[in-house]
C-alpha cells in the first residue's frame, strides 16, 4: 500500500459516487470494505458519521470527498478533524450547489479576521 500511494474516498449521492468511480478511484479491499458510501434517502446520519470516521481512521486514504449537504449533517465531525491527512474536500451535489460560506476550511480562514483573534 505504501508504494502505491493513498486512496481517494467519496461520501455522496449516487451520481457523485458513480462519477468518481467512473474516474477510477473506487476500491474494495481484502475485507470487502469500499472506499465510498452512496448516500440514499434512507441512509441514517449515524451511518454517514461512522463511515466518515472509519475513513479518517484508515491510513490508506489521502483525500475524502464529501457532498456539502452531507457534510452539513455531520458538521461537528468535520470541524473536529484538524489533521492535514486525510484532507476533507466539500463538493457540490446535483440538488445543492456549492456554498463557500459553509465550507469548513474557508470558515476557518475567514475566522482569522474576527475580533477574537486579536486578543
Amino acid at each position, binding site marked *: 500500500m505504501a508504494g502505491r500511494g493513498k486512496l481517494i474516498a467519496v461520501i455522496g449521492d449516487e451520481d457523485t459516487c458513480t462519477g468518481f468511480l467512473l474516474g*477510477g478511484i473506487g476500491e474494495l479491499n481484502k475485507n470487502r470494505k469500499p472506499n465510498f458510501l452512496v448516500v440514499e434517502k434512507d441512509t441514517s446520519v449515524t451511518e454517514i458519521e461512522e463511515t466518515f470516521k472509519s475513513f479518517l481512521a484508515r491510513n490508506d486514504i489521502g483525500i475524502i470527498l464529501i457532498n456539502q449537504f452531507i457534510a452539513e449533517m455531520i458538521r461537528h465531525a468535520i470541524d473536529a478533524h484538524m489533521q492535514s491527512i486525510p484532507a476533507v474536500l466539500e463538493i457540490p451535489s446535483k440538488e445543492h450547489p456549492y456554498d463557500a460560506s459553509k465550507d469548513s476550511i474557508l470558515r476557518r480562514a475567514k475566522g482569522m479576521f474576527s475580533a477574537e483573534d486579536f486578543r
Partner: protein
Amino acid sequence: MGVTELEESSLLLDEKLLRFMDQLELLEEKRATLNTLIEQGWFSMSKARYSMGNKQVSALQYASEIEPLICVHARSLDTGKMDFCAERVSQKCSISGKDDRSIEDIGPQEEGVRKRIKSKKDVTKKETSEDASSEKAPEVPPVRKSDQNPQQDPLKWFGILVPQSLKQAQSSFKQVIDLSAEIATLQTAVLIARQDLMHSMKEKYTLQEKTSGAQLDKVAD
C-alpha cells in the same frame, strides 16, 4: 531600534497577508473550475442515462471487484505543508497483483483465427507451392486473453458499447480527481498560512506593547 523592529514585523505581516489572500483567490478559482467540471460530468451522465435507460447508469452496475486506477501521493514539505499529487496506477502493476487470485480461464488462451493442425504430407506439398510464390502472409502475434484486463476500466461495468456521453462523463470526473488533489494541497497551504499569520500577528502586538511601554517610560523620565 524598537520602531524599526516593529516596522519590519509589520512589513512581514503584510507580505504574509498578501500571500494568504493570493492562496485564497487561487483556491476560489480552482473551486469554480471543479464545480463546472462536476456539473459537466453530471450532464454527460444524465445524457448517457437518457440513451441507455434509467437503471443502466446506477450503483447497481458497480463491479463486485473494484481496484483503484488512481492514487494520491501525499508528501509533507519543510514548511509543514502537504503536497497531494494524483497519479494513475499503471495497468501492469494491477495485473501482476491480480495474477495470484485470478480465476482460471477456461477455453482457448489465444484470441483470433487458429490454424488447423495438418498432416506431414500436406505440409510438404504446401511448402513446394509456397516456395514458388514470393509473397508470404505476415505473421500476426496471437493476443492472449490474460494480457487484457477488461474489469479494470469502470466504463465496462455499464456495458461493452457505452455511449460517447458516458466516456465524456468519465473524462470530466478524471479531471475533477486531478483538480481535487490540487485543491487539497491548497487547502492545507491556506490553513498553514493562517496559523503562521496569526502567530506573526501576536508577535507584532507584543512588540507594539513593548515599544509603547518604552515610549511611556521615556516620557515619564
